[in-house]
């Protein structure tokens, strides 16, 4: 029995190599995309599950009320620092242990239009962390 091998031309070799390479690149890219999607969703999920402090701001007349709904570091929270866009200084307020809400009296007085409001938390270890950044429409 004679075994005959089909002769492969140089052009065919290049073609096969190109297919192999393209397939490898696609596999790597798809793998990368899935990995990054998994990681990003993991990060998002993780941050959703474990907020340091979950709070909410709203305007009541001339006051700004900060409701505190919990979070894994809520017991370490000692100060809240609020900055309203267009105002020079941050307003820092003590957070009594276990406080459910904190009121910035007259913080909205005279304010009109839309402004970004930044709320930072200062924890018992001295760490200062952004807790909320929201645009509020004062009028």
């Amino acid at each position, binding site marked *: 029995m004679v075994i005959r091998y089909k002769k492969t031309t140089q052009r065919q070799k290049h073609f096969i190599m190109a297919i192999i390479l393209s397939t490898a690149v696609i596999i790597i890219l798809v793998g990368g995309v899935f990995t990054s999607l998994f990681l990003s969703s993991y990060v998002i999920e993780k941050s959703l*599950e474990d907020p340091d402090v979950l709070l909410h*701001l709203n*305007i009541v007349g001339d006051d700004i009320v900060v409701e505190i709904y919990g979070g894994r570091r809520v017991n370490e929270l000692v100060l809240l620092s609020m900055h309203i866009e267009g105002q020079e200084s941050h307003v820092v307020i003590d957070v009594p242990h276990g406080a459910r809400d904190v009121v910035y009296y007259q913080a909205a007085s005279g304010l009109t239009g839309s402004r970004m409001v930044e709320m930072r938390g200062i924890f018992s270890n001295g760490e200062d962390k952004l807790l909320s950044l929201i645009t509020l*429409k004062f*009028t």
Partner: protein
Amino acid sequence: MAFIIVAGIVTHPDVVSVSDEKYAGMHGALDEFTPTIEEDMNEIFSLTEATARNLSGVSMGDSSVELALLQLRRDIPASYDTYIVDTNNTIQAITGTSEEQKSVGTQSCANITEEDLKSSKNTSIVTSFYTCNDGKKGIIVIAPIYEANGTYTGTIRVSLDTAYLFSGAVDQLRSDYGYTIWSIQQDGCLIYYEDTELLGKNTLNNEIYTEESSFNVAQLVTEKPEGNISYVFYNVGWVEKGLINAVWDTISFPDGTEWRIVLTDDISINNIDIDNEHSSSQFTTSELRTFVEKAYVYAQTHTKEEALKAFNDRNGEFINGELYIFAYDINGTTLALPYQTQLVGINRLQAEDITGVKFVQREIARTEQGGGYVYCQYPNPAKGFARELKFAYVMPINNNWFIGAGLYMDNTSFEPCGDMRNKMISQVRNFQYLSKIMPEDELISMLNNPNSSIQVDGLYPFASTYSGTILSYVMDPSVIGNNHLGYVNSYGMSIGREAIPLAQSGGGLIYSLVWDPELERDVYVLIYVEPVTEDTYYGSMIILE
């Protein structure tokens, strides 16, 4: 809802007419209702044509043009805007905010030619239902303007909110007889129903119509100018099907346009089997707020998809008796509405309640202030989806979407206030007109004088700057000169902070609670505001109790 009614028609081989006993009562109510719309439309034609005659030969640069348009808008409370369009269909003058003034020089959305007007014997034309780029929906009444020598120079146009046009009379009809109305053009386009987000849908061919039907009520109504029918349809919440009776008639206008006016009863709605758990309001406003806060925490600790899935689950933890969580994006598109899931994905930014309050816009406005309480009238699933005053609490999840829930105010029933609402709108628009012909301090003096000619019985006008300084407040003159941004009612609602952005965006209606110094308590009010000058807005209110 007419569309849902029509869309929800199911195969019903034994189509029957309304029983004689039922028909007599319904036909009588329809006979009483139809002339009110006819009279209102005839009044609008008459006012528009009179203004067109007065503008004959007047240059567009003349100050009398602005005054004429303001007067016309004042006299037609259902109007959005009044404007003048030249022979090339280009807008030459318009009422409204500086944003609306930008449309001067642009093409009008309705291209009506001199030939169109001649074919309608030079009477007013009523356009088909339209939706403008800014989301306003309605019809336009158009009257030709001629020079003294007969030369055609253009048209005067009044864009009308059909929800406003019908709602006052429908509110009265509901109160007197328990019936409601839907209305379609000859082509099947829905021009009125209480669920205003469905206006403009074509009842004959819209994609929402998915069920094969051997009997199409919409087709019958468009084909026959009058008639009656009993048919099976889905209720407002698409929960189950029931029998409804309908009697219809036709309004014809001089240009040949016809509207079918369909009066329906609420039998099937009343027959909805409501779970006993849903049959009474057992929650306090504090519990309402706690319920929304629980959903807020859930939304903040789960993905948006997970949260919306939970909020739309009718058997889930975010439905408790009459309380349920709704969610919208900041542009008004429905994200969660467990009792009306067919509205998920639909934009409801322009949706109005029966009084004309754009409730989704009000909720968005409150959300943009960080959230809080807001009022609207909304179908109550525990009362067969009847419209009731709802006290909602809303919270933003972030700057892109928000959630809320509401309580129906069991002990608060208001009489229909369509006529007073129209008087209130006309009063505020009259202030706009007067601000063009007299100094502002003189106008403010008239506002502050309870005996002046601009006062109307039962209305409480006011004026304020955009920074919150009260210029006039007939209900309590002692607060004039104060800044009212910090004033809140017993639910933390600041009327000033709500009314200013509403006025800046062109004006509108809101419900609130305000302190009545005579009664020494908060009272429910309906408020209307409009921008008047660059620095001030004016408003008026009706006590609803």
